[in-house]
């Protein structure tokens, strides 16, 4: 056992740091630091830089363009991308649909879809939830009826993050109702968003932003070539995807970065006040969250180490999802509390690109604290709510 990085690991860390210092565009960093959302073009520009470096698909097998990094290298990369305040890859392509395609897809699908995901030529979104199917995902009703060499898709998907920016959607659809178990008869289908009959309607969420959408399918004709794997086996594929997704959802490195920023903030006499760090009750709350985060970091590392010796991320990844999102929300609450009255003005326009930063009321950490706090209530709901995660752990880990 050794807690310190080896010489090789230190060299790798330096390489990654140098990359972020030299290749992460200053205008994007400025936007991120000032709380301005990146546009689709910004995001793609950055993802292509990562792709050129060969670092877009950290977890993929090397043969498809992955990095082949060790668990510790992945950990170092995650820390450095967070420390640079650079955005992660949009997950739906590279982290979610791609593992399903390279694990269960045929050769034609691999060569058709993987390079475009790797090079950010195609933007993906996820079609799982439906208005009537949230936690009970297997009750989904979107139908795909076979018509010669096409499926005809009808139904509605919802909570579809960034669907308004996406080129493609991967969907769980019902291809057969004549089944013994509801989990059977579900298929994994890839749908071009520009196909006639696909409409996207915005959903404005609690903080006032458009992040998610409803996606309607009205007699959408999808070639049967876009079916991944076997018809009726989509549930199994979808579960693999969700296990990958859950480990991604822990967000440890981002939480570490935010925790450091919080501690910087509260060590200063903001607006002439006594630094909040001197408040025993508040500093104990910060400490308790920091300890939980440290535990999570090592739980994540232990999971990564297990994956490195060939174990797939199993139901244990649910633990990371539960605790990771709880810690994120605890940090959100600390920022909110630290901001005091400055968390309350609702001024979304001052985070528009053309709003002069010097005319803003409060700092990003203050006036965006409430919006972040509101928005991130989603974390314990998405990716399978934390209660569903507990059901999964109870069944598959504890054997109950």
């Amino acid at each position, binding site marked *: *056992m*050794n*807690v*310190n*990085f*080896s010489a090789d*690991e230190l060299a790798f860390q330096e390489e990654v740091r140098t990359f972020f210092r030299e290749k992460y565009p200053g205008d994007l960093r400025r936007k991120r630091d000032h709380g301005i959302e990146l546009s689709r073009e910004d995001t793609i520009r950055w993802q292509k830089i990562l792709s050129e470096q060969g670092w877009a698909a950290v977890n993929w097998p090397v043969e498809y363009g992955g990095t082949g990094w060790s668990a*510790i290298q992945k*950990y170092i990369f995650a820390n450095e991308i967070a420390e640079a305040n650079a955005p992660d890859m949009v997950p739906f392509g590279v982290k979610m649909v791609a593992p399903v395609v390279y694990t269960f897809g045929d050769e034609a699908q691999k060569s058709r879809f993987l390079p475009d995901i790797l090079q950010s030529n195609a933007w993906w979104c996820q079609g799982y939830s439906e208005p009537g199917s949230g936690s009970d995902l297997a009750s989904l009703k979107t139908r795909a009826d076979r018509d010669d060499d096409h499926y005809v898709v009808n139904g509605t998907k919802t909570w579809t993050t960034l669907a308004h920016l996406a080129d493609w959607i991967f969907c769980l659809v019902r291809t057969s109702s004549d089944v013994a178990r509801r989990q059977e008869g579900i298929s994994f289908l890839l749908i071009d968003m520009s196909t006639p009959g696909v409409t996207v309607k915005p959903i404005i969420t609690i903080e006032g932003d458009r992040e998610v959408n409803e996606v309607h399918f009205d007699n959408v004709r999808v070639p049967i070539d876009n079916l991944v794997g076997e018809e009726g086996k989509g549930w199994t594929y979808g579960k693999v995807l969700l296990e990958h997704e859950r480990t991604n959802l822990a967000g440890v490195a981002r939480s570490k970065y935010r925790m450091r920023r919080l501690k910087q903030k509260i060590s200063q006499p903001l607006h002439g006040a006594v630094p909040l*760090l001197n408040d*025993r009750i508040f*500093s*104990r709350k910060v*400490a*308790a969250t920091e*300890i*939980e985060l*440290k*535990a*999570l*970091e*090592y*739980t994540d*590392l*232990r999971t990564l*180490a297990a994956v490195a010796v060939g174990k797939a991320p199993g139901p244990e990844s649910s*633990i990371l999802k*539960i*605790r990771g999102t709880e810690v994120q929300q605890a940090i959100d609450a600390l920022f909110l509390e630290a901001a005091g009255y400055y968390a309350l003005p609702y001024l979304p326009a001052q985070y528009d690109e053309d709003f002069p930063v010097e005319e803003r009321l409060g700092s990003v950490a203050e006036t965006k604290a409430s919006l972040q706090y509101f928005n991130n209530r989603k974390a314990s709901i998405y990716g399978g709510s934390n*209660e569903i995660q*507990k*059901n999964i*752990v*109870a069944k598959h*880990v*504890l*054997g*109950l």
Partner: protein
Amino acid sequence: MDFSISEEQSMLADSVARFIDNDYDFETRQKIAASELGYSKELWQTCAELGWSAVLFDEEDGGLGGGPIELMLMMEQFGRGLVVEPFLANLVLAGGVLRRTASGGQKEQWLTGLIEGNLQAALAFAEPQSRFNVADIATTAVPDGDEFVLNGEKTFVLNGGSADLLIIPARTAGDQSDHDGITLFALPAASDGVSRRGYKSVDGLQAAEITLKEVRVNADSVLGDAGQGLPVLQSVIDEATLAVCAEAVGIMRTMHEKTVEYSKIRMQFGVPIGSFQALQHRMVDTLIACEQTQSLLLWATMLTAADDKGAAQAISALKYQIGTAGLLVAREAVQIHGGMGMTWELDIAHYFKRMTAIELLFGNADHHLDRYVALSN
């Protein structure tokens, strides 16, 4: 960065695990705990023969050169077996002081016996007024020729009733909570003026209240530098804290697993109680508590092994976690076992009591959260 353990470390953990499985079932443990001595001389000798008493000491002193990682691996198993043998008192606390301070002659006098298992020792780290502040020492040592005269009271001295050797922190200078002026003495327990009141503790271990009245001790009994005992004491207490936390992780795991198993066989309303979602989610919470605590244990142990400057803070983080997540696991285990969890007959109750004792030992969760904050500023 590497989480794997060496082959030797793995063999050590296996050998302790086998001992727990084969020679230390709950019934045996209960008999030993209830005996007058409170530990088994025979098993203590076995510990020495298997080399466990030697693990933490340097090879040149007759030890095996192990450190925090070996300590963690052993203590987790001791936790699982709810071991009452005085490993902590002898080898981590008293042995820890000797390891850090003893001169050649003192090692010859005390260390060999400790490693061979024929000397019992104790470190008197607490006083009636001190609570969790190890610097709060009212016991005085006044020089008189080539002797010191000790006066004071020591409380909850683990293994104090059985010990042949007492290690006494006493004040040779300064005020009651000053960091300077604390001196450590190696005092034969049979010395004139030492009176001991031994008792069992709620968790089945044994301890003593010790009163020192005009106790005369030779100047060559001073361990380390006179007046500079606090850093040694703090370092030993930190290592002991790490040790009981590792023990607690072994206990938490065991309580969690036993609870899950029990919930599968305990039938109510015609079904196993483990089929109720209200209980399932709580057992998932205890699993998460176990995993998170195991992670902090790993972190704190690795930092301690690397002699990292953040080690003390990490140990406080871990002890806080034991006092929160650890106690959650313990309480839930009793609750889900229902009435059976309340019985003296079932091991769950005794694991619960040990967890309760560990929470109060070397500072509770509140104390360690404050210390964590203080060490981060």
